[in-house]
């Protein structure tokens, strides 16, 4: 147990679970609360923007469906990368790790395109209205998670290129996979809530959130 941090040792733990794997699971629980609070903020402010643009004006659901599909494919590639690591298929490890990273990178490309068209073209900035604030914060945090994941995958790819990944170090790949799948699942939730369900939201009156005229204390 003195080798607590040494990854490549077979170590006896009380539960039989590896320390790092247990750490990752608990961390993901923590991250769930982070996204939970961000998503809650988004949902609380759904349809509360006083000025446009509103989701119905600018969300491009077909394009985001494609990027969602890309991210789902990357999870498939991740599974393949771990399988190749466990089988010690050196070529497979490199190909699938690179594929995962590239698909993740493509997703980020879609997000950059989305942010650019929403802001510069359509005029929705982070301070424009509540939709802008909540949307960019939520998807921005998710994008930051994906970016971190891509950096992690590229680091693993470099390690794989030196031939240092294989069945004995499969945990290194597995941990990245756990994180990657988590980030993917979070996106499914965001896509469902923000795009599929909330994608047709308009202003407060149209959404039926406020009935009657907008209170006069609010600046017009």
């Amino acid at each position, binding site marked *: *147990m*003195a*080798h*607590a*941090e*040494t990854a490549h040792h077979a170590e006896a*733990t*009380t*539960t039989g*679970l590896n*320390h790092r794997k*247990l*750490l990752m699971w*608990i*961390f993901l*629980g*923590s*991250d769930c*609360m*982070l996204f*939970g*609070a*961000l998503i809650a*903020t988004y949902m*609380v*402010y759904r349809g*509360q*923007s*006083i*000025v446009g643009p509103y989701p119905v004006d600018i969300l491009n659901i077909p394009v985001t469906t494609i990027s969602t599909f890309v991210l789902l494919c990357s999870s498939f590639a991740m599974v393949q990368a771990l399988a190749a690591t466990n089988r010690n298929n050196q070529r497979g490890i490199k190909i699938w790790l690179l594929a995962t990273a590239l698909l993740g990178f493509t997703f980020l490309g879609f997000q950059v395109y989305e942010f650019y068209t929403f802001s510069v073209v359509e005029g929705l900035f*982070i*301070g424009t*209205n*509540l939709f*802008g*604030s*909540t949307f960019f*914060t939520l998807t921005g945090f998710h994008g930051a998670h994906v970016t971190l994941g891509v950096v992690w995958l590229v680091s693993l790819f470099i390690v794989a290129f030196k031939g240092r990944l294989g069945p004995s170090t499969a945990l290194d790949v597995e941990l990245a996979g756990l994180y990657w799948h988590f980030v993917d699942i979070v996106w499914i939730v965001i896509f469902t809530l923000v795009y599929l369900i909330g994608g047709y939201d308009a202003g*407060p009156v149209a959404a039926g959130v406020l009935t009657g005229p907008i209170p006069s204390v*609010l*600046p017009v």
Partner: protein
Amino acid sequence: MATTTGVLARPTSYSGVWSWLTTVDHKRIGVLYGATAFIFLLIAGLEAGVLRAQLARPNSTIVDGQTFNAMFTMHATTMIFMAIMPMSVAFFNFVVPLAIGARDVAFPRLNAFSYWVFLFGALLMHTSFLVGQIPDAGWFSYANLTSRTFSPEAGLDFWAIGLLVMGASSVAGALNFTVTIINMRAPGMSLWRMPVFIWMTLLTSILLVLAFPVITVGLIELTMDRNFGTNFFNTSAGGDPVLWQHLFWVFGHPEVYILILPAMGIVSEILPTFSKKPLFGYPVVIFSGIVIAIMGWAVWSHHMFTVGLGPVANSVFTITTMLIAVPTGVKIFNWIGTMWGGSLEFKTPMLFAIGFIALFIVGGLSGVSHAVSPSDFQQQDTYYIVAHIHYVLFGGSIFGIFAGIYYWFPKLTNRMLGEGLGKWHFWLMFIGMNITFFPMHFAGLDGMPRRIYTYPVGYGWEVYNLLSSLGYVLLFVGFVMFVHNIFHSLKKGQVAGHDPWDAPTLEWSISSPPPEYNFAEIPHVRGLDHYWIVKREARAAGQPVPGPEPHAAPGSVHMPSPSYWPLVTAFGVVWIGGGMLIDVGWDYIKFPISFVGGLIAFIGVVGWANEPASAPDAHHGGHEAGHGAAH
């Protein structure tokens, strides 16, 4: 290998400043946490002194309202996040591996990283004093007082970013202790044989891991509102200040248990030891702790009864809050049952533990009185609340922490803390605490609002306030005695030996101070109160009680090596936050400066990842960490 991963050779020294900067030994990190937190405790205490000096007499002009605001904000923020929490973490660090029969925590370098992030984050928040823009919106900093419009100075940015940084430290530490307790128990130590303090540490860690992300989101939204023009709490754009209250208290109520559960754990170790009988109803105490940790998530709106959430919400949160008092009350009966019929030994740790129970009962009862929402309407934002929180956090947490310091100091240093001074300390604290905080109940019920910086003559608040301020003097003298006791006992204290209290848990079966590797041989745990079982059997067989475990041969135990990467990474992480606070009149300079911090952190992580946990060529074992800690 080890020397090729960094610019500098891997540190190998076990003495001197460098050894403290690079240590990964849980006992030394515990000492660092404890010493740092104690300094912040004194700072927060002095800030309270300013408050009590100002409020001692009506129409006082010792400080102005602005300074008063800054002082009560930093008093509470420092006490909660920089004194009580890290003090508890100091106990987690020092006690947990020893009491579960492990040689270190699961991730020793992550542990060092947590400490350095905490230290730098606390310093970062306190640099607000240097630029004269001190946080001043209260410890829960309600929106929209915190908007740029109403708080144009940078104080709240220091507050928000400082808390974000320290939150990262807390989560990293809590992850570490959760894994350590789940995964590194000595053979035979099933969950139901864990000491209560270990259980409470586990529950606290789980609460931390789940609660901090919520306040993180709130703080990020606040920071973005103030710096990037978002509208989260901006009412003119439709934003709702009540969202901040929800995010804050969804975190804030579990935080209350994060502050009190460790103290409850400490007390549950001390009472059996000094009553010479096992804890009464051990499983009930544990279940109560679990119930508290779960139900603690369903009571947060009792902080918001007067916000106008409606009768349904107020009723529901009244009921859940009254329910959560049940497991807390159960614990109190268990502690009393432990003492009942025991042969009580009134040593200083025991006095503080009993003081904890007495004062926590008072705080618990006033807590139930504002669990009732109609009654709370009368008490909201009055000194009655201030009285309540100080009975649970000062009478509760701080008394528990002092009990723990008196209890484990001999294990850390092989010296006893002076009993005479300890008793003086206890009685000054106990009497001073009641004189300070009990009158606040009456001041509050007579309508004195909290946070006012002065008050006129004639409301009948003068006597209460004067008493509170006089009580502060007693507390101050008590603290001076405690500090004197520590320094005196370190040099001249009576030698403790390995088991001065005839205690039941594993850490007392090894020498004081413990060797760096803790256990030469990992013990096989035979039951709850393992060391009592061992000693009892020896006595029954007419044999002498076994002494401390003999030390291992030098070099025979392989331990994690010191590392400077946690320090580098922590420095980078905090620089990211610090960069966001740079104000030279041009906002965009913040990003490149923060980016440099990110780069340092990245280099730190790469160095860390490429460095094996223990250097293969290092000399191990034989040196005793505790010596450095003690002398």
